[in-house]
């Protein structure tokens, strides 16, 4: 996997240590996110990949303090630019959200308020957080709409969301997230709800904006193709845990965790996958995360499983590459 963008890693923007999210269900506590730790640096795109229900969306919501009522967050360290978010007041969180940290949602069709024009909604964060005058906010809105590739920005400001297509709405959402020039941008599957050609445009746009503005971006996705295109670093989540984390090059070239390897073998690669040949599959289903969970979550589906997989799994490090497995290296 060739990667043309070299990450210029700067200061740590987001530092997460020991994040857990439990969801109360009638059957007991569901451990949606289990002891997850990662960092995002300035100028870097971290992709969190995993299948549905692995806890990646819960992770992003926990970072923004947007968890649903039934969910509780426990965290060792949760710091944005060195400021502790775990103990911050609601007022302080509100001041940071939309200003220093912003989020782009999956569903552009419902993420814009139908009762207001695009312009009102775009200008709102800047006026609310920075006390900008309508003129200043309008100027910034037009500038950003241009940046996200919307023509005739001035006229667009007076339109309502239902007059825009899904792709345009997602561009507006991106512009809105960038209004206050945030340090951290969290995008939760920003292209999933769009059709394939628009998906590519939106991802290209996000990658370009991230480069141009040098911000820290966290991209949540289940699409490894997306990851290969724009990630600097990748964290693979499975059953609420990050099972492997490393630079995009390393992870795609030499996956260390059996799950990552299994995921990569599911994707056809031009030149390597024979026409008519079988793609890889991962046998079995995701385990239930309700009740006591211990050991490796992947052991029931893993071809290399050992009895000691049910115990605490060690973590291995090689330079920037980390993985949780009893094996130091996968058997060839």
């Amino acid at each position, binding site marked *: 996997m060739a990667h043309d963008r070299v990450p210029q890693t700067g200061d740590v923007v987001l530092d997460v240590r020991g994040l857990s999210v439990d969801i109360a269900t009638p059957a007991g506590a569901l451990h949606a996110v289990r002891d997850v730790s990662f960092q995002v640096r300035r100028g870097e795109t971290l992709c969190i990949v995993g299948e549905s229900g692995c806890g990646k969306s819960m992770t992003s919501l926990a970072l923004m303090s947007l968890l649903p009522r039934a969910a509780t967050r426990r965290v060792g360290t949760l710091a944005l630019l060195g400021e502790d978010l775990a103990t911050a007041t609601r007022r302080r969180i509100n001041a940071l*959200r939309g200003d220093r940290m912003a989020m782009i949602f999956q569903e552009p069709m419902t993420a814009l308020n139908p*009762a207001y024009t695009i312009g009102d909604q775009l200008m709102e964060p800047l006026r609310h957080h920075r006390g900008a005058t309508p003129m200043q906010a309008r100027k910034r809105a037009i500038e950003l709409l241009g940046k996200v590739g919307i023509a005739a920005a001035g006229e667009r400001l007076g339109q309502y969301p*239902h007059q825009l297509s899904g792709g345009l709405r997602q561009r507006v959402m991106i512009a809105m997230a960038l209004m206050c020039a945030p340090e951290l941008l969290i995008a939760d599957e920003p292209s999933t709800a769009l059709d394939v050609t628009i998906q590519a445009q939106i991802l290209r746009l996000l990658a370009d904006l991230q480069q141009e503005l040098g911000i820290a971006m966290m991209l949540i996705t289940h699409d490894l193709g997306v990851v290969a295109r724009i990630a600097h670093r990748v964290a693979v989540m499975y059953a609420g845990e990050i099972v492997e984390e490393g630079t995009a090059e390393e992870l795609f070239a030499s996956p260390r965790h059996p799950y990552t390897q299994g995921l990569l073998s599911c994707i056809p690669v031009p030149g390597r996958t024979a026409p008519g040949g079988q793609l890889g599959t991962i046998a079995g289903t995701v385990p239930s995360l309700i009740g006591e969970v211990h050991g490796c979550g992947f052991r029931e589906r893993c071809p290399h499983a050992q009895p000691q997989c049910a115990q605490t799994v060690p973590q291995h490090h090689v330079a920037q590459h980390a993985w949780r497995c009893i094996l130091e290296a996968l058997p060839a």
Partner: protein
Amino acid sequence: MAALAQPAGSPLQLIPTRSVWQRIWRNKAVVVGGGLLLLMVLVALLAPWLSPHDPYAQDLAQRTVPPVWYSAGSWLHPLGTDPLGRDYLSRLLFGARISLLIGVSVAIISGLIGTTMGMLAGYFGGKADLVVSFLVTTRLSMPVILVALATVALIGGSLWVVILVLGLLKWDRFAVVMRSATQQVRSLDYVAAAQSAGASTTRILLGEVLPNVLPHLIVVATLEAASAILLEAALSFLGLGVQPPLPSWGLMISEAKAYMFFSFWLIAIPGSALAVLIFAINLAGDGLRDLLAPEGRA
């Protein structure tokens, strides 16, 4: 920054822009209902100048004069006089003030109570929802007319007592409708997006949720205003609402019931006025809902 692909041509021209007035004109329900309602409001406001006579002035020489279209009628009293010789047209015009005042004030009072309760219950759910649902159930278990009758009988009837009693009793539909509408809006991404943009709860409730539940609110408000007007008429008819000599339409019907078989128009005139007013309010409310739906804006 790479130039991103845009659809060719100006997409803005594809969207037809119609002025607000054109959209109102196309909505016949609003035109007819709103027109009638506007007429009634004007008549009520201008009653002192439009009325040919003092609505309270009795003239025993001119008792139960029939309207002008009867052979015994005259243009002196276009709608005739009541059994006390008071000019019926003047009483009808002043009566419109009472009906409209009751409709609007009751809708505002009960709307404030019900909308607050419903939005809090719908937005916060959990305990707030339990409390509000319990209050709504309690309120629904008491028939409005019975409670109103008892209260008015206890503290005496007057215009303001009727308004307060109805206003404090008729919030249930507001609460139920606002609760479910808020629940629906609350689960949409733009509420989460507003939270992620740093908006406070008050701001989200008033700025994000309220504008999107407003069409429901307006429809309920019109229905409730109409039903409050009818309730006032019923209470006045039973002698427990507005007290004579105030010219309430319900009271006029009540006073005329003894003459029903001899002077039918005494009941028919205020009755028709009441029916037309209710019809106009309901029609206008229905049309406003279509007009205000965010998707209908262009």
